[in-house]
């Protein structure tokens, strides 16, 4: 058994067994992370390159730590967004990094399809750390890990994803992953940010948050990019919060046992109230911890494919 591809580009290309295997492997690594000595020698001598065209301290740090816990060497390679158009071509940058002997390339880029492009052009294992508005697979995997850890099972759960679905790679990867694992998915948000065509993926769509949250087991909030305000997607963040902000009152409409998730960083008072973010049902910090274990599992399993 093992993953079929040398790369992790998106959840789209995985099946339920692949996802299950990653989650099981991550569970093992989570035990390791609870020990005094948190490092394992599994991938000693390998090199991981973080190639980030978009700044993201969280994701980059999580990958960096995951790679180090597996004893790989880590190089951080940041390219400023402004140089993307004018500077060295994507392919040339990638080939340079390959020439350095990278075994893993963790890539984040503002354009969809970049992870795919690199995977096709390089021998190294490419892990997508977020490409444009396409996918962010490790985020979805850590979300599923967290859900499974708290709820025991994913199949049959009702998961509400709230916010800017159209532009959210986190939402996309979660939709694919949750459907593959047998959960029900509801998408909630303004019609400008929740494309109707997604109904074809067998999900429910609501613009009325109260209706959408009714009986939900999981409420997954997305970060609203404040820059979209005034661009015609919604009038103001004040009005957004009034219609789609997660408050204790709204959360009361979900199941009593419902969990609240958020990929971070949060905009308190825009998509989520502090009462909820810091409340009993929030598992937001567990997500961060689990991210480390899941990313270790991904690197470990991909190394197995290349061997």
């Amino acid at each position, binding site marked *: 058994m093992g993953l079929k591809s040398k790369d992790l580009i998106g959840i789209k290309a995985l099946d339920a067994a692949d996802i299950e295997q990653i989650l099981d492997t991550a569970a093992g690594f989570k035990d390791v992370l609870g020990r005094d000595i948190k490092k394992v020698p599994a991938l000693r001598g390998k090199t991981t390159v973080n190639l980030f065209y978009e700044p993201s301290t969280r994701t980059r740090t999580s990958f960096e730590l995951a790679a180090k816990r597996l004893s790989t060497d880590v190089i951080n390679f940041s390219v400023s967004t402004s140089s993307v158009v004018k500077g060295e071509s994507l392919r040339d940058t990638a080939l340079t990094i390959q020439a350095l002997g990278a075994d893993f390339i963790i890539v984040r880029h503002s354009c969809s*399809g970049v992870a795919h492009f690199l995977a096709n052009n390089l021998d190294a294992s490419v892990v997508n750390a977020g490409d*444009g508005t*396409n996918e962010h697979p490790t985020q979805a995997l850590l979300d599923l890990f967290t859900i499974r850890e708290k709820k025991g099972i994913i199949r049959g759960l009702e998961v509400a994803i709230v916010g800017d679905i159209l532009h959210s790679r986190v939402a996309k990867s979660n939709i694919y992953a949750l459907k593959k694992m047998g959960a029900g998915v509801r998408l909630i948000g303004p019609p400008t940010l929740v494309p109707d065509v997604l109904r074809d993926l067998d999900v429910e769509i609501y613009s009325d948050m109260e209706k959408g949250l009714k009986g939900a087991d999981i409420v997954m909030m997305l970060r609203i990019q404040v820059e979209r305000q005034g661009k015609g997607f919604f009038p103001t963040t004040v009005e957004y919060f009034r219609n789609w902000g997660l408050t204790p009152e709204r959360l009361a409409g979900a199941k009593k046992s419902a969990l609240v998730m958020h990929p971070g960083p949060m905009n308190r008072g825009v998509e989520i109230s502090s009462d909820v973010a810091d409340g009993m049902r929030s598992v937001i910090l567990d997500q961060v911890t689990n991210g480390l274990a899941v990313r270790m599992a991904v690197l470990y399993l991909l190394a197995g494919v290349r061997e």
Partner: protein
Amino acid sequence: MKVVIKNGRVIDPSQGIDGVCDLAIEDGKIKEVKSEKSRGKSQKHENNRGTKEIDASGKLVLPGLVDLHVHLREPGYEYKETIRTGTTAAVRGGITSVCCMPNTNPVNDNSSVTEFILKKAASEGACRVFPIGAITKGQKGEELAEMSIMYEAGCVAFSDDGRPVMDSLMMRRAMEYSRILKVPLISHCEDLALSAGGVMHEGLLSVTLGLKGIPPQAEEVMVARDIALAELTGGRLHIAHVSTEGSVALIRSAKKRGMADVTAETCPHYFSITEEAVGNYDANAKVNPPLRSRKDAEAIKQGLHDGTIDVIATDHAPHHRDEKLGEFDFAPSGISGLETSLGLSMRLVDEGVLTYSGLVEKMALKPSGIIGIDRGTLRPGAEADVVVVDCSREYRVDAGEFLSKGKNTPFGGWTLSAKPVLTISLGRIHEWE
């Protein structure tokens, strides 16, 4: 020079010919088309010395094709294509007249650029080039370009292709003014606000690929606007690269009403492939307007079949290899189409969408009529623009073999059957195996 192309199936809708004939050419002009019957009697006397005989048995003999929509890139973007390479590729594709779009650098918005293009074409071109001038200066949509001076210099139509005229008043004035020349305005119909940032057809696929979509309505609102303006002004409107079902319906109803002088073209990629060709971010399938849905492609075929769409043009848009490599969002739009156009379009005959004559009408006769040139015909006295097509052997499309500098095609690896094996253009005979 005398040439006789013998025993081919000659298709010439301008004379209602579809049958095995001999085509005689003398001094660069068509001399006569002789049918089997009349041929038998005089055959013996005809073996004149100095006559080149070409056996076209089992092949089609068509008037050289006329392409209303080509980007030759010169002046300014010679790394993508030149007049020499573009016209050479055209001839390879059976095309003997190309109309070149004005979005060069500098823009063809004044007669000196028009003259440059024609001079270059005369010295280096493998086929005739008919320049299309810009509607507005610099294609900026602000001031009319000097249309009648450019017309005198040789422009056959006007278009702000690629940078459509968004200001409706400006477009109205252009249509009114163009009436003095009786030439068409070729409109690239795209509401730039509605399509902004878009890189492919809007739908489930664009959402799941994370690519910004362009809804069909971005084209259709402008088709509707331009038809309304054509009705208002009496100007001649030719709608470029129709890609959607809704546009076909709008044009059909406009033609039925009969209030507007409107014609329309589509391109082989809009009836041959769909948005699915984008696959996993293949920038060779990035084109503007974008490849649409299966329903749209079917509607385009219906539009060709019932006469709503008059013309098949290529919108040949060559780009350098490096430009199509990398981020899909940053890749320029366009398909190198001159060398696959006939092969792809001939599939319409196999599918029963068009007859051979219908196809030649769309690819030679009608486009000539729209720009008012005496081409696309095998009438005696016409220029000897001829293409001989072999439909009997299948071949694989290999972009590496294109004579165009642009190797950007989504049809690489396709199997086609119609292939030009001989083209006569500008008095020269080009033959290939």
